[in-house]
């Protein structure tokens, strides 16, 4: 079954006439996703790979003639908040925010409105999500043929703070003959729409998913939140974690940010060592090497 997306999921692309959005639209269409419209203010009447372009989300929904399930937002940082609010207020329930470098206040505002309206935001600063052979929403995995190579259907749910590592890890699971139920690039910023712990109940309820792999980094409390969730909920899903950026624990790296805006060690709880200890205390297996992931998943699946 997978989570969040089905073969019937419809979505629009906001900022569809931008260079990256044009590529992303092509990739999603090739993969079989139902892209039903695009929005770029002032460009109504054009089309992008056959997808009609509108000035407003409302027009795109009206043209579709039924509620639209999702939106991929890829507009410049200064306009992203407005675009996301527009999607939410037009009944869109799943919003993938690709844009990076959005001020945190804007992210917090859109996430709070989404929570009031019952919508879900993935990202910002992410590549979206994919259900292998069913639907790809965002640039995740790249062109359809590349995505097909890296993502085969299977029992593992993948959540990653890095877009590129979502595909790297999924590809290793595919090569090992395991495959992926749903892979989600959750975003690399300090505040994101959906954290590991917030997505866990969906995976928990999904019959296809039998194990979870997470890619994590120093900075923030997201791993602590997951550890707490695992401790409080009697989850059936084994979780395998990989922590990158252990070198950031060195004294001379304190206060520096590497990779993503969210990776900055500011307090004791932020360090890789502290996070690994917390995850392990919650029964989550933390592998040392990236190539140990498929083996660790197989081990847990066979044990369970």
């Amino acid at each position, binding site marked *: 079954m997978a989570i969040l997306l089905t073969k019937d999921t419809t979505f629009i692309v906001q900022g569809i006439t931008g260079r990256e959005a044009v590529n992303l639209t092509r990739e999603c269409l090739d993969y079989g996703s139902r892209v039903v419209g695009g929005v770029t203010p002032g460009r109504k009447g054009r089309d992008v790979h056959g997808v009609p372009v509108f000035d407003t989300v409302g027009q795109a929904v009206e043209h579709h003639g039924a509620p639209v399930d999702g939106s991929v937002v890829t507009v410049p940082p200064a306009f992203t908040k407005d675009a996301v609010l527009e999607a939410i207020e037009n009944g869109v329930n799943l919003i993938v925010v690709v844009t990076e470098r959005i001020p*945190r206040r804007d992210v917090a505002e859109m996430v709070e409105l989404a929570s009031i309206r019952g919508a879900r935001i993935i990202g910002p600063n992410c590549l979206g999500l994919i259900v292998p052979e069913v639907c790809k929403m965002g640039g995740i*995995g790249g*062109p359809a043929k*590349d995505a097909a190579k890296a993502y085969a259907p299977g029992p593992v749910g993948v959540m990653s703070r890095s877009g*590129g*590592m979502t595909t790297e890890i999924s590809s290793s699971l595919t090569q090992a003959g395991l495959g992926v139920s749903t892979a989600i690039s959750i975003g690399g910023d300090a*505040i994101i729409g959906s954290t590991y712990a917030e997505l866990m109940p969906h995976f928990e309820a999904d019959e296809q998913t039998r194990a979870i792999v997470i890619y994590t980094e120093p900075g923030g409390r*997201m791993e602590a939140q997951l550890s707490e969730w695992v401790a409080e909920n009697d989850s059936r899903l084994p979780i395998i974690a990989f922590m990158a950026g252990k070198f950031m624990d060195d004294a001379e790296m304190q206060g520096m940010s590497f990779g993503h805006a969210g990776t900055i060690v500011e307090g004791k709880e932020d360090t890789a060592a502290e996070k690994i200890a917390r995850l392990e205390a919650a029964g989550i297996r933390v592998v040392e090497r990236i190539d140990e992931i498929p083996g660790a998943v197989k081990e847990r699946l066979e044990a369970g």
Partner: protein
Amino acid sequence: MRFFEYESRRIVELAGIPVTRYGFCRSAEEARAAAEEIGGPVVIKSQVLSGGRMKAGGVKFADSPGEAEAHAAEILELEIGGQMPRGVLVDPKAEIKQEYYAGVVWDGTRKQPLMLFSDMGGIDIEEVADQHPEHVGRGHLSNLLPISDFEAKQVIAATGVSGSQLNRATPVLARLARLFRERDMTLAEINPLAELTDGSFVALDAHMEMENEAKPRQKGLLEGELEIAPDETREPYEPSEFERHVSAIDAADHRGVIQGKDHGFEGNLGLVIGAGGGSLTLTDAVRSQGGRPANYSEIGGNPSVAKSCGLAKEVLQKDGVSKIAVMMSIVSNTRVDIVARGVIKACLELGRDPGETIAIFRIPGAWEEEGFKILERYGVEYCDRSVSMWEAAGRAVAKIQGEGVASQ
């Protein structure tokens, strides 16, 4: 982005929070003049971005303008946390009745700002929260609703503060919360917030940090009010020559993004790696297998040949770098062949043999067949996704350690 204390005080003042009449001085003579103007005992405080000023001797009290001048001269020469002060702050020595703490930070789990208040100010708030939790009031703020005074009042009242103190402190915390939101701060602290003997409340020290992403829309405050030059980076350390060169190469071409850092790295293996998460993973993989990275880098988006070439050249020209490892996680929008061309060009332009210089090339993904063909022509060892990032890093380490190619 971090602010000096004199700037933080100005930000607080602009938000309508009372401060003492302070003077920012760049020389000992100016400090003397400021002390004369204030009259009476003063405090001289070093203006550095690092903490621990008090311990380092960067804060001194003076009873006369002459003493203020002497202290200022000393402090201006005193390096704190590897930084020379930008100047000193001359502040009247306040008649303090009690010290409080007021702060606003982000709570990443709740995704809302969190107001903090304590009647035990002047010391580290984490220490107070740890040892006297009943003396710390907390309250989350909605991101959508206007910030009301009662929200601040509730937080302060939770610490047991009442009477005129409650009524005087409430607008201070509420204004601090509004400035946190309006100025895109990630941290806004007044510590100590002092109640003076006359009953008034003033901010005696303030600490502000603004989110880098918000700098463009806060230009009015930064460049207008605070006169901060647009190119001031405010990194915790001075950028190195390597870091400056890489940013210049990045800025010269809009295609793709490259970043390079070498602060804290002193090894012999140059890393031309990407992207965000891939670079973190690969740097760890090199170190865990006994390798010594000479730098950290990130390739993202789809950089031009010139950009990849520029990054590789800068890495190769670092002292003690004999080989580079070119590695990324599976890429979808970065073209493998373009990066391959770039790094080979860098070797050739520096008169080095690409086959010898590039320890390993591991970038699987878009246009990989074309890329691998080019690498083959120059005798560069490459691998696809069937070789893990860990294994590729291991091969590079083995090569630079002169142990030949690691066994499969």
